[in-house]
């Protein structure tokens, strides 16, 4: 296990380097003169020259890349062209907002998806199985930005049940401590604000959860069906064990590996999907941060935003890989 962990960490190095290189190349791959594109056509020659220098584009590319890498290792994510402040300082609150949304979405997706999958497998070919799998198929094909708009129209506008946009009540904003508002409000003992935050989380959380929920439900179902055909399940049944325990204890534990893989992969994809969900629900997360940066051609912010999400994605996959062994001792790494 230890040697596997070390090797798995080692295999990360080329991937992380490659990711940094792609992100580094982004600004250099802009057709034409990047500094000119960033500043617009009206920019003076001096301004373009100054921008070229500021971005370090006047040096040979390998020196630029070396500077970029050593900067990254020191936690330097560049300076926003719009606000002139370091991205590493700005990005924190946005990142926390996205993490909070993604966590809630993942909790919704896992709780509903896993249970729907288990029950579907338990009562295979029942009406529940049929309905759940049709919903999962539709969910899988759902453009989440459209689902978000429909949620807003029906639940917020027509029924006036939940707020349309934002993270908190703008007239009574949450005072950030950790940046995770659910925790911040509880730390300050503001239960009223806590429920306000939950209300704001529900719609974007469901929109973001839809696709992973569908995939998790399908994966759980097929994995459970496979396990439930095995001999030890028949033995457990023959011993007279209650079906509930057979399903939730014996079967599910053994069906968990592919489910965990999917959950890990989906958590990463969720971070990508966040850019759409945040756009619809005015969620001040990293997706919004990147989106605004694209509109104002603030390339250092686009680069670092994408790098941070990709880094999280890789780390989540790493954790999932290492989790396998913990879940299933039968897995031996050679």
């Amino acid at each position, binding site marked *: 296990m230890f040697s596997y962990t070390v090797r798995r960490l080692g295999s990360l190095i*080329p*991937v992380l380097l*490659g*990711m940094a290189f*792609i*992100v580094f190349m*982004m*600004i250099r*791959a*802009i*057709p034409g003169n990047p500094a000119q594109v960033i500043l617009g056509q009206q920019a003076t020659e001096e301004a373009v020259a100054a921008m070229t220098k500021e971005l370090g584009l006047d040096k040979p590319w390998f020196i630029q890349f070396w500077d970029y890498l050593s900067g990254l290792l020191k936690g330097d994510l560049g300076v926003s062209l719009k606000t002139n402040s370091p991205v590493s300082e700005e990005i924190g609150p946005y990142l926390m907002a996205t993490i909070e949304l993604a966590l809630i979405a993942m909790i919704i997706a896992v709780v509903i998806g896993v249970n729907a999958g288990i029950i579907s497998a338990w009562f295979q070919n029942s009406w529940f199985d049929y309905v759940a799998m049709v919903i999962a*198929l*539709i969910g*899988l*094909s*759902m*453009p989440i*930005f*459209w*689902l978000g*708009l*429909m949620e*807003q*129209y029906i639940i917020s*506008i027509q029924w006036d049940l939940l707020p349309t946009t934002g993270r908190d009540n703008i007239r009574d904003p949450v005072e950030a401590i950790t940046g995770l508002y659910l925790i911040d409000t509880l730390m300050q003992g503001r239960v009223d604000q806590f429920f306000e935050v939950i209300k704001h989380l529900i719609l974007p959380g469901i929109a973001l959860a839809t696709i992973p929920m569908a995939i998790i439900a399908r994966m759980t179902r097929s994995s459970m069906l496979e396990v439930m055909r095995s001999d030890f399940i028949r033995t457990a049944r023959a011993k007279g064990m209650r079906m509930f325990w057979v399903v939730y204890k014996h079967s599910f534990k053994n069906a968990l590996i592919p489910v965990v893989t999917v959950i890990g992969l989906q958590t*990463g*994809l969720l*971070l*990508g*999907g966040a*850019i*759409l969900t945040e*756009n*619809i629900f005015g969620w001040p997360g990293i997706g919004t941060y*990147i*989106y605004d940066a*694209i*509109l104002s051609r603030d*390339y250092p912010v*686009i680069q670092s935003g*994408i790098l941070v*999400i*990709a880094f999280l*994605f*890789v780390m989540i996959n790493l954790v999932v890989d290492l989790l396998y062994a913990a879940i299933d001792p039968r897995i031996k790494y050679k």
Partner: protein
Amino acid sequence: MPEIATNTSPILPPKEAEEKVISPWKEGWKSFRKNKVALVGLGIVTFFILIAIFAPLIAPYSFEGQKLSDKHLAPSAEHWFGTDEFGRDILSRVIYGSRISIGVGFLSVAGSVVVGSFLGIIAGYYGRWIDTIISRVFDIILAFPSILLAIAVVAVLGPSLRNALIAIAIVNVPIFGRLLRSRVLTVKEEEYVTAAKAIGMGDGRILLHHVLPNSLAPIIVQGTLAIATAIIECAALGFLGLGAQPPAPEWGKMLADSRAFIIQAPWTVLFPGLAIMLTVLGFNLMGDGLRDALDPRMKN
């Protein structure tokens, strides 16, 4: 000696026996036909492809004809899906939009298949450092959430439908690259490849005559599912303003343009989204069915 090996040899199977051999494609079609869900998918896909092909004949109005006096008309006999903020007929725009979405779906996936297969085959067949480099590049591309990488590519190249297509194609290349690589690794060990090598067949012909045909089924399955993803990604980029530009009737862009009017005219948001969902659902159902029918490893 050589006269023994003429084709009059009685060992060759007679014609009737030859006809009884069922090709894997026929067998696949037989099991696909029994799968009702997959047939629904095929039906939806065929429906949208026909709409895309015959758009100018079916669409009641032009997709860009503005008539401001008709703005935000609710769905009626004249405008089945209503009209948008410029008085354009939404049904006609949705119909023409199918050309963009399905076109981008097919073209981008075709691009990914060609590039991905080429790289995958080279990596698998030649192995060694070529394999290491290509596989690492795939790993790195897959290390990004795909929509995010597509956004990054468009942020660099500039927003347009063509660049969105390129971005989506790039993001999908590793899927087919890895697929082909693993197929090559399996097929390479088969006896008929050794035999082909023994009779002096060149690498190119072996790849073309043995490796590719043996990889066609999984490519078709993956390709169908990838079209579904590509359509959603195209709409997502359009929605963010990074794909098709006005007045193109791209479904995602239509959603983005109409969302400000969702209270006065909810139909402007309803129909383009439904179109996206149905098309994607069709390709997903069909892909699932094809996988069950063509991919023996997935058979229960």
